[in-house]
């Protein structure tokens, strides 16, 4: 594969993993703008474990997901008390605190960043991404996913039909944190260097942005959203400094045409229905 393509692809896949970390709680109406904090936690945890403990990669990655998930679990209780913009700010604050703390820990390089020795290349990242996609698609098709979407639409009513609102929300947030941790671990091992300044709130905001562009109603949204975000600027590469202006214009345009994201449930249902209409003879025969 061409070096350029593999470079772009890795960036896309990592963005996609983090997109799912935002998508999953997002499907339940939880805006996580602290996702970069979880990515950072995953990246540093895995880097430290593999550098200092010299444990096998599979172990360190799983453990770093676990660390990220645990912190997610702990922080989810206070954060889920808040609503709307307050939740946005609470999650931003969390992300900033993580960065603010990590930058002062000299054992993992502090402001200097932290080199990572074990290297992971595209195939492994691709496999992990595939696993994440399949996992989220599957999860969204379970009763858990149904409950999550119901909570997004109408929380009190969901509770009246037996959904454990808190349980489902906490689980979604925690799993999201674990996925973010995975994204971070892979990031660190691929780029061989982790530096907190690349895990700031801006990263979270952009991630949320492309998740929303893709659409939060279905698990297919992030695939498209991350593609728009990672690949569109590449298409405009020739336009040099106008590149981001075009990109912004396209975002505004997309949102004007598809305000609920590019991939919506209505769209999928319409496609599906068209599919069944396309084969009417069989149904008519029955």
């Amino acid at each position, binding site marked *: 594969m061409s070096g350029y393509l593999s470079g772009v692809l890795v960036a896309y896949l990592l963005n996609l993993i983090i997109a799912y970390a935002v998508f999953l709680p997002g499907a339940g109406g939880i805006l996580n703008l602290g996702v970069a904090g979880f990515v950072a936690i995953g990246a540093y945890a895995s880097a430290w474990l593999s550098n200092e403990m010299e444990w096998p990669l599979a172990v360190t990655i799983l453990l770093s997901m676990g660390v990220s998930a645990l912190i997610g679990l702990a922080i989810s209780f206070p954060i889920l*008390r808040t609503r709307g913009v307050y939740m946005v700010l609470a999650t931003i*604050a969390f992300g900033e605190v993580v960065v603010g703390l990590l930058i002062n820990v000299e054992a993992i390089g502090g402001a200097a960043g932290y080199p990572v020795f074990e290297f992971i290349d595209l195939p492994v990242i691709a496999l992990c991404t595939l696993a994440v996609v399949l996992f989220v698609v599957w999860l969204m098709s379970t009763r858990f996913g149904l409950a999550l979407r119901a909570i997004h639409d109408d929380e009190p009513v969901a509770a009246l039909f037996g959904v454990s609102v808190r349980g489902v929300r906490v689980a979604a947030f925690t799993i999201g944190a674990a996925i973010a941790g995975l994204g971070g671990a892979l990031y660190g091992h691929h780029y061989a260097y982790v530096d907190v300044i690349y895990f700031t709130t*801006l990263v979270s905001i952009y991630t949320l942005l492309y998740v929303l562009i893709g659409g939060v109603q279905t698990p297919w949204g992030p695939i498209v959203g991350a593609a728009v975000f990672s690949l569109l600027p590449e298409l405009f590469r020739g336009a040099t400094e*106008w590149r*981001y*202006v075009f990109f912004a*214009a396209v975002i505004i345009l997309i949102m004007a045409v598809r*305000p609920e994201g590019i991939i919506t449930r209505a769209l999928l249902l319409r496609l599906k229905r068209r599919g069944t209409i396309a084969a009417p003879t069989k149904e008519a025969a029955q």
Partner: protein
Amino acid sequence: MDVLQQLISGLMLGSLYALLAVAFTLVIGVLNFLNFSIPGIFMMGGMISWGLMSQTNMVWWLAMAIALAACVVASLLVERFTYRFMKMRFGDATEHATPLVSSLGFLILFQGLVLIKWGPEMQYFPSPWQDPNLRIGELVIGLPQLASLILALVLVGGLSLLLARTGLGRAIRAIAESPDTAAMLGIRVNRIVPAVFIISGLLAGLAGVLFSLNYLQASPRMGDEIATLAISAMVLGGLGSVWGAVIGGLFLGLVQVMVIQFFGAEFLRAILWGLLLVIIVVRPQGVFGGSKISKGKF
């Protein structure tokens, strides 16, 4: 003496947060719309004034007036393509994520255009005055900051009166809840909403000009840092509460200065945001805020 200077510095810094927070809170409180383009408009206020002054030798007041006009136009542009567009198609702009995302798009757009025009460097902003500071003995008070504090207080006083007392305020609150229903009641949504955006754009631009005057600098990224803190100030004050925004802004300015004084700047980030996190979690609806919680779903 130094403690006093620090207190003053904190309040003055806070007053800039406050002005920008009011710009945010207007749009979010009145229209239920977290307008991410505001930092961009803030930046344009500073950069366009600078550009006109340094590149065409325009007198400062004219340059600033033109910059503010540009900010208003930009704000109206945002209104046209986020809020109005959504309202026309879906009745209620704020039920969707569109405004959030497209206003972020506008932020990127504004920054991109300024970058193309003037490049990414931080620019020296010439002061129209010999010394834009009030000096009382050893104490220094930035006049532009003082102006933004007074401006914030006056504007906020006026706005809160307007919102609470007049029919216009009632109409605006009706729009905030449901533009669709408001329109059905004959409220001229397409006239009031642009007006709110004009005020908000003007405030953001003004904050940008005052910022540049005070720190004698303008750069395409000057909005980045201040915006998150202004949003925090707004949220801390309670959404849509204009007084809350001012108090939140001043409070954050003070906290920031005190943390630097007593703990050092390296811990600023963790302490400031940690404190914010605790406050939000303890009072999930803002410190001074009513119970009104943005309905913004996506």
